[in-house]
């Protein structure tokens, strides 16, 4: 089996087979990360540009780290220091990056569809590090990777995604990844943030936390963005927490072996109580660590790497 995809733009377009290939490759790279020398020469001599036109800590650092572990040279550019502040168009910025001999472009952008747009313009691989409310494919891949580490196959597993689904690219990427992997996905939150149109993506939509959490093996919390309050999507953070915040009592409704996930950044005391975020069921920091191996796999495969070799090298 071989990897043929040049860009990673969405999970929606990936096949189950491709998702499994990325996970297998990530698994191999994860072993390397446990060694004393955490570096392989896979992308030596290649230059990867991290173009982050929207703020990010985790994703940007994890991509940076992943590229370095593969021995690539990495240059990070953010909105504040790029010429986009001088009015340069995205096309021009990207074409200049390519002209500077970059071998791969990682893009984070607030406008949905921007990575697809760039993939049509550039000759080099484009990796989506999050576009608007559309997709965040590497997050979906690392989240499902983490779930597989805990449960093995995800077939038939009950996964609940709780919070601001409407504006979440993480939710969309996870819905696509999880449904392809055979999990049963339930989306929960206030009806203004979890519209029924999500059913079309293959998920169940619920506004009843208790029923939704009953026997769930995974609950993934999403950050409640403060600005949603002023846009009248819900009355107040306090009311949100009282209706949908995850606390100890509500966590009791979960399956005994359930894990608690969050892509970060966390609002402690809003969508999740502190003791749960730091508790034994939380895998939030595992997700962050797995982000490196998964992104190594993506960078490696999209630059033409052969999955079997990555695995053999480990």
């Amino acid at each position, binding site marked *: 089996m071989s990897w043929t995809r040049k860009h990673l733009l969405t999970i929606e377009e990936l096949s189950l087979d491709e998702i499994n290939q990325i996970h297998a490759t990530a698994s191999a790279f994860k072993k390397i990360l446990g060694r004393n020398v955490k570096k392989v020469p896979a992308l030596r001599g290649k230059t990867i540009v991290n173009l982050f036109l929207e703020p990010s800590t985790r994703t940007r650092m994890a991509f940076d780290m992943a590229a370095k572990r593969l021995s690539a040279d990495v240059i990070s550019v953010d909105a504040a220091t790029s010429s986009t502040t001088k009015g340069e168009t995205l096309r021009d910025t990207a074409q200049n990056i390519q002209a500077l001999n970059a071998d791969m472009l990682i893009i984070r952008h607030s406008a*949905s569809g921007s990575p*697809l747009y760039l993939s049509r313009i550039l000759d080099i691989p484009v990796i989506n590090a999050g*576009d608007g409310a559309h997709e965040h494919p590497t997050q979906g891949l690392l989240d499902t990777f983490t779930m597989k580490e805990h449960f093995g196959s995800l077939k038939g597993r009950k996964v609940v995604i709780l919070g601001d689904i409407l504006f979440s690219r993480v939710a969309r990427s996870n819905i696509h990844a999880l449904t392809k992997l055979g999990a049963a996905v339930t989306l929960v939150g206030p009806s203004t943030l979890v519209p029924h149109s999500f059913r079309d993506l293959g998920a169940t939509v619920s506004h009843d936390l208790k029923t939704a959490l009953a026997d769930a093996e995974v609950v993934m919390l999403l950050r409640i963005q403060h600005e949603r309050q002023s846009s009248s999507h819900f009355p107040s953070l306090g009311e949100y927490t009282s209706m949908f915040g995850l606390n100890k009592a509500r966590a009791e409704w979960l399956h005994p072996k359930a894990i608690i996930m969050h892509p970060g950044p966390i609002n402690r005391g809003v969508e999740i109580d502190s003791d749960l975020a730091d508790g034994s069921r939380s895998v939030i920091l595992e997700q962050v660590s797995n982000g490196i191996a998964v992104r190594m796999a993506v960078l490696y495969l999209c630059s033409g790497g052969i999955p079997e070799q990555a695995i053999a090298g480990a």
Partner: protein
Amino acid sequence: MSVLWITNAHIIDPASKRDEKGSLFVRNGILVASLSAAEKKSSKKIDAKGLIACPGLVDIHVHFREPGQGHKETIGTGSRAAAAGGFTTVVCMPNTSPPADNTGTIQFIKDAIERDAVIKVLPTGCITVGMKGQALAPIGSLKRAGVVAITDDGDCVQSNEVMRRAAEYAKMFNLPLMDHCQDSSMTQGSVMNEGIMSTRLGLRGWPNAAEDLIVSRNLILSKYTGAHIHLQHISSAYSVELIRLHKKEKIKVTSEATPHHIALTDEALSSYDTALKMNPPLRTEADRKAIIEGLRDGTIDCISTDHAPHTDYEKDREFDYAPNGILGLETALAVCLDILVKKNKFSLSKVIGLMTHKPAAILGLNAGTLAVGAPADICLFDPTEKWTYDAKKGFSKSVNSPWHNSSFVGKTKMTIVDGKVVYSSGKILA
């Protein structure tokens, strides 16, 4: 004296219920019943064998961008695109830079029309100063300066009170109001239809309800004031239903639909192609079908293009940042022949009516018919000719068309304005 004789044409003039093979006679720019033998001898003769001769098409919704945005389109280039599409009369919107909210700007536009236009171009004025939805523009003076309607197209008047007063005031001058129906409080940041596709694509949605609310508002205000309100580019199925219901009360409300809203849906947006971004946005298949049925039963009165040029570099951006609007004039007839005649079994005469005397009647324009005594504004088209639209070779200054490289059946061959051939076989002759 100039005399024109069009022979062998299949003449379709819905306004005078004419649908027959025959000749059209023109003397000094006016359609006449016949020519003398001597006149026939000296006439310019056009053999229209195999062609349909219909009234020059009328579009009551175009953006020609002058003054201020001549990089996108000018009255000269826009009118040439119109001529190439078979249009002889168009009405341009006042959302220029500065907006046409004063008589000086109207005069500027009229001067440009006089100087540059190859067809009849008529101006509209704003409803409110600067299209800000607050103070009324000098509507009476605008009327005196020659506007055929008032509209804040693109920026729907949000205040019901302002709209009510504008309607009452404009009624005094027998001036229709054209409204772009959009409750903007519900569409902040929106770039496409709200629904399954916006959910999938992660783009901010523009709900039908935001159109339905303002359509309802206008239906109510028209009934209350007796003013004529024309509802622009209807895109929502429920709006069609609301209009249908209220039209039974004989209120003075008219409405239009665009070729793109009857041909395309938001399904096409998977590609994030900015040539599919316009306002109101492409909606669902159910909406598309409802609009076609609205046109069929007369709920929607006419077709208009909302021809909205933008340069390639303005459109070549992230979807969120690209401006709204697409070209329409050079493809409208072909798209309507395909969607309405071929795919939805409208008669040819019905579709021609929707693009000629029906829109003309909405604004009381002296256009849209081949009746004796009418201006000789004529479109000759070949209903069977296959062609491919290349926006880059079109007459508009811009290329932002979703139909670039699309193949059609049915092509404008000649456009005649006041008895003068302004477009023939791919060339502007004016």
